[in-house]
């Protein structure tokens, strides 16, 4: 284990750093006389004659905080000591002063390496910033433009019919007239789409006859819309008979809801 491996992830690692530094001081700095233990017999002449230049040291290198969400900042702090000829942090930062701090915005988890070079040698230290992805943003909303299905479910109403009839009632005329404008605009905005005109019936007639009756309702609604300028080739009448009721109670309120022409998005 060595000094170069100092990580500054947590507080405790700072303590480890300090401890390691002191160890380094004990083990390597030959010029400084060790305090407590009895000195060994000094190795004769060489140190005095040509003193080796001290290897530079990294006093500290930290990233705070060490974990961020993407887009947030972390601050790198460092200080180095000793004789240096070059100090740099990679990636993306380059040459720096002997001590300082820098905000970084890494897009992914990044390990920064501080490299110090001097006449006495080289020292490195690393600091890692863990980056997590933030929760996704809400889907992009096209300003003021609804999808065809949205338009059909919010701005287009069902045309209702009398029992066993496919003639367009007065209230259905009003509904279909309003629908026509919405449908024309929606079809102009969605040039490849078609609209399905579904015909439905209540539960009382036979299933077989209701296929024909509901087909009539779909076709009658389509014909009315075409008269109002909705392109005929974009409206597809489909009979569902009484196969897909909107509600299943045996009451006039429910039956009326089921006797309808309904509009849905087609391919």
């Amino acid at each position, binding site marked *: 284990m060595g000094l170069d491996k100092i990580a500054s992830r947590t507080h405790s690692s700072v303590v480890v750093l300090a401890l390691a530094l002191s160890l380094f001081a004990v083990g390597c700095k030959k010029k400084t006389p060790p305090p407590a233990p009895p000195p060994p017999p000094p190795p004769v002449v060489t140190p005095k004659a040509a003193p080796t230049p001290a290897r530079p040291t990294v006093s500290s290198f930290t990233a705070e905080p060490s974990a961020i969400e993407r887009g947030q900042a972390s601050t790198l702090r460092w200080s180095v000591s000793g004789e240096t000829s070059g100090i740099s942090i990679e990636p993306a930062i380059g040459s720096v002063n002997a001590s300082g701090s820098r905000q970084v915005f890494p897009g992914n988890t990044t390990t920064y390496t501080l490299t110090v070079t001097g006449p006495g040698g080289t020292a490195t230290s690393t600091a890692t910033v863990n980056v997590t992805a933030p929760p996704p943003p809400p889907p992009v909303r096209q300003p003021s433009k609804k999808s065809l299905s949205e338009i059909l479910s919010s701005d287009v109403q069902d045309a209702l019919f009398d*029992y*066993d009839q496919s003639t367009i009632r007065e209230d259905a005329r009003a509904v279909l007239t309003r629908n026509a404008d919405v449908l024309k605009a929606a079809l102009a905005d969605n040039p490849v789409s078609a609209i*399905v005109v579904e015909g439905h019936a209540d*539960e*009382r*007639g*036979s*299933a*077989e*006859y209701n*296929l*024909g*009756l509901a*087909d*009539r309702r*779909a*076709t009658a609604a389509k014909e009315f819309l075409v008269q109002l300028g909705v392109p005929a080739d974009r409206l*597809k*009448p*489909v*009979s*569902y*008979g009484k*196969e897909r009721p909107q509600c*299943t109670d*045996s009451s006039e309120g429910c039956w009326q809801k089921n006797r309808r022409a309904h509009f849905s998005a087609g391919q």
Partner: protein
Amino acid sequence: MKKTTITAVSLFALAIAAALVAQDRIVIGIEKPGGKGSMAVPDFRGAAEAQAQMGVFNQVLWDELDGSGLFRMVPKTSYPLNVPQRPEDWMSEDSRQPANSRPSTGAAAQATRELGRRLRDWSGPPVNATYSPIGYTAVQGGRLVLYGWLYNVGQPDASGAQVLGKVYNSTLDEAGARDVARQFAADILKTFGATSLNGSKVVFVSTRSGSKEIWMMDYDGSNQKPVTSYKSISTTPAVAPDGSKVAFTSFLRNRPEILVHSLLTGRRLPFYNQDASMNATPSFTPDGSEILFSSTAGGGYAQIYICSADGRNLRRITSVRAVEVEPKVNPKNRSEVVFVSGRSGPQQLYKMNIEGTDIVRLTTGEGEASNPAWHPEGQHIAFAWTKGFEPGNFNIFVMDVASRRVEQLTHGAGRNENPTWAPDGKHIVFSRRVGRTQQLYSMLADGSQVKQLTTQGENTMPVWSK
């Protein structure tokens, strides 16, 4: 067999007489239950391992004979204890058991011991039977073998009373017991001129798998299995006269179209659908070569069309500004078509020839009428009608097409629809909705003997096939 012929002739005369008496009732050739006399069906026993299957056998034999509606069934509790198992078990009227007759026993005790071994023990009170089947089963070569006889117990002696005697065999299990019982019952019914339903199927629509699919079962409700699995809407099935294929309305391509499936391979067969908003309610012509259906191929209202069985060679039959569906061709007379139309207002039954001419309304214009189904003999139709009830409350009716006389078979118990005739012309299967559940039932053509056939999911639109 001279005897059978004589019996048949006299029964036929009886049927005519009954029909004449019932002039105000519909003349439909359907006798009331018990028209062929009363039937005592003692429990048959099996030798050795065969006995284990006899519970099922006796139940099926009883049900088949009872279900035919031909006989008044005599409850088993009134039968004598001695049941003959083979022809030699019958004692002649005067014979005594010479060896065992001890003077001290007395005539009364002797008679008790022998009760059941003479024909008159079955034809007289309290049994009062006209006919009785006897027999037994045994195991031979690992198979279940049935020895079965039918006796006309009203005859003076056993040698002239035998109507039927035959040997049947099948697998030695419950299915085999069911099988020999059905075969024996079928032969008994045949001697009375009745068509056996053994082997006939009912095709229907069920929601039990989560979507409306075509299903098939034996006529008595057993052996139910799916024909389609499109997970769409499959409805209004029609079966080809030879039972080989089914045509139905499908929403597979998001609009009502006709699909045809083989009932032999289960595969889909080619059918060309017209480019129309609706192609629906198909039915086959009697020879199976063509399909009539309802289509908007000509624009406007759903009308009656005819095409080849593969959808080609389209011809339009009707032309009117009204919804017309459910064309059904008379099985005995290809030119006669009954269909449903809204041309006079609420849906009613109409008749025309296959060229689309001679159109007449069959129902009175009251209520709403639907689901016409031809009787195999081509003189009557069964159908659903709301006459006398609120819209939607259908009941099953039978009409004599020539006279337009009708008879109502169900009477307001739920919503009753889609009647279909059995090949014997005596049974009808139909759907009945009670509350929110709809199930299939069978009944005799006079409305009696109503039996529920299905329980799982919603079950509708039965079609009886061969």
